[in-house]
């Protein structure tokens, strides 16, 4: 069966060009970049090239500002803890948004146990962080502000440039987690005013096993993984050379193809959203409508009266890969904390599905998904006691209330943990 990937937010396949660039570094050019002989020097050279490719991709002033880690998670851990430990004499307060990825939020919880404090800035119903709320949260003790570029569950684009301006004015380092946007939206660290920024190349057709942390001189940073003097002493451990090489090439390709990728997915996103609105009643979009406020690749929808895992499994059995923020899907059995933060009704949170498009998707993919999804919804609603009660008028819809029957509406916040769909 042909597979359709509507889960690009989880990960993406490595492109042939990326693959070709990586390939020699497994066996032929297998050197350790710390070695001073041919094998080592060649590997070191390859790292330098990849560092330059990444620097160019995000408009860093210098490749010396690029540090390679094992992934987006480690990059976020390094940004949060590495800045916190480096700056603890200046202050011990951080400001983060409430909808950051667990890589950020759990890092923050960890350093809170070490005596730091943190203000979590709330978001509006679309998951958007108000820069004024960030500004209000700043204190004399604030040593770091962390706000993601794009929310990983909702697709909401955050006002990072405005936040960058106000943190710069206050001299507070600003970390932008761009894991959910890198490769899909133009990233210019200087225009954003980011002092730190993280990327996960496996999200834009690069390999797994490598992450990127950009850091400029305005943010002090100590290592959190200790050992050898790799990465200018900021990240110990033998470098994952082939993956780093792949990351560089993936970034170069993404930089070149960006306008095309955005145009392509934006078109499919519109088709998908219009199809869902037309064909699936009692369905709600979370996050901004397609347009300037959201990333062009994803839609976060909740279908009323049915649960998300069943939707996901039936999509999968019909050849379509999707994700969900429902509690049944998460390892912690809690709904996505992002859905909780936007105050989504609990039952709707359980009916959540996250669709994310990529370069290889086609209009036929979208149409096939729509045809399939309509059948899946019908099948699951036929099983659902809630749908039955709604039909009989015993309960009302939260999405499109008729005004008769009681609704089970309740904000999701009570049920959420810092779990996540990706």
């Amino acid at each position, binding site marked *: 069966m042909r597979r359709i990937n509507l889960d690009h937010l989880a990960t993406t396949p490595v492109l042939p060009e990326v693959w070709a660039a990586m390939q020699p570094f497994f066996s032929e050019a297998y050197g350790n970049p710390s070695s001073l002989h041919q094998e080592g020097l060649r590997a070191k050279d390859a790292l330098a090239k990849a560092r330059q490719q990444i620097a160019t991709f995000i408009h860093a002033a210098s490749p010396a500002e690029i540090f390679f880690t094992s992934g987006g998670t480690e990059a976020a851990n390094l940004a949060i803890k590495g800045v916190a430990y480096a700056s603890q004499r200046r202050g011990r307060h951080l400001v983060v948004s409430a909808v950051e990825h667990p890589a950020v939020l759990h890092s923050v919880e960890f350093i809170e146990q070490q005596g730091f404090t943190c203000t979590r800035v709330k978001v509006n119903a679309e998951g958007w962080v108000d820069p004024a709320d960030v500004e209000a949260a700043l204190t004399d003790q604030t040593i770091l502000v962390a706000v993601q570029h794009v929310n990983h569950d909702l697709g909401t684009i955050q006002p990072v440039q405005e936040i960058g301006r106000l943190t710069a004015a206050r001299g507070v380092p600003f970390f932008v987690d761009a894991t959910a946007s890198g490769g899909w939206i133009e990233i210019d660290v200087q225009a954003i005013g980011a002092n730190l920024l993280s990327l996960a190349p496996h999200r834009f057709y690069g390999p797994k096993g490598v992450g990127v942390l950009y850091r400029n001189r305005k943010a002090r940073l100590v290592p959190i993984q200790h050992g050898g003097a790799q990465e200018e002493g900021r990240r110990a451990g033998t470098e994952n050379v082939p993956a780093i090489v792949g990351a560089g090439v993936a970034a170069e390709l993404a930089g070149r193809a960006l306008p095309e990728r955005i145009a392509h997915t934006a078109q499919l996103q519109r088709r998908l959203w219009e199809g869902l609105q037309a064909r699936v009643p009692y369905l709600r979009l979370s996050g901004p409508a397609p347009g300037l406020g959201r990333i062009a690749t994803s839609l976060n929808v909740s279908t009323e*009266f*049915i*649960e*998300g*895992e*069943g939707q996901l*499994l039936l999509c999968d*059995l019909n050849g379509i890969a999707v994700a969900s923020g*429902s*509690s*049944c*899907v998460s*390892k912690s*059995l809690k*709904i996505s904390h992002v859905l909780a933060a936007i105050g989504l009704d*609990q*039952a709707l949170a*359980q009916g959540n599905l996250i669709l994310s498009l990529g370069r290889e998707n086609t209009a036929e993919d979208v149409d096939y998904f729509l045809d399939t999804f309509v059948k899946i919804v019908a099948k699951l609603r*036929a*099983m*659902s*006691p*809630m*749908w*039955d009660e709604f039909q009989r008028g015993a309960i009302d819809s939260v999405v499109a209330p008729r005004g008769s029957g009681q609704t*089970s509406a*309740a904000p*999701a916040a*009570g*049920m959420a943990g810092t779990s996540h769909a990706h």
Partner: protein
Amino acid sequence: MSDIYTLYNETVMDHFMNPRNLGDLADADGVGEVGAAACGDIMKISLKIKDGRIEDARFKTFGCGSAIASSSMATELIKGRSVQEALHFSNQDVIQALGGLPPVKIHCSVLAEEAIKAALDDYLKRHPAPAAPAAQPT
């Protein structure tokens, strides 16, 4: 399903994709509904009981694959049992019949047990005397 990777074993997947006893019973003798949408699972089980024996069972479920499979299997298991036997029905019966559930999904089988107990409770409330004299306090 040889080349297909599945979240659940084959029996669970079968009951999820082809649920047995789906629906309601118009003239049910006992109906139980447990769970909450907010928690991700609602199970409703309807029983037709004659001469102290479960003649028919139906379910409707809002929930994940294993919740649907658990209620499907539970209705299969309960059919033909006496009310007395059914009162001892355990989620372990469901797990065993399904050939196992992932640890984090055990609660789905518990919900199925609770739905059956709730349906039997409803039945016993509606038919107090003949069926459960021993269950009454002396």
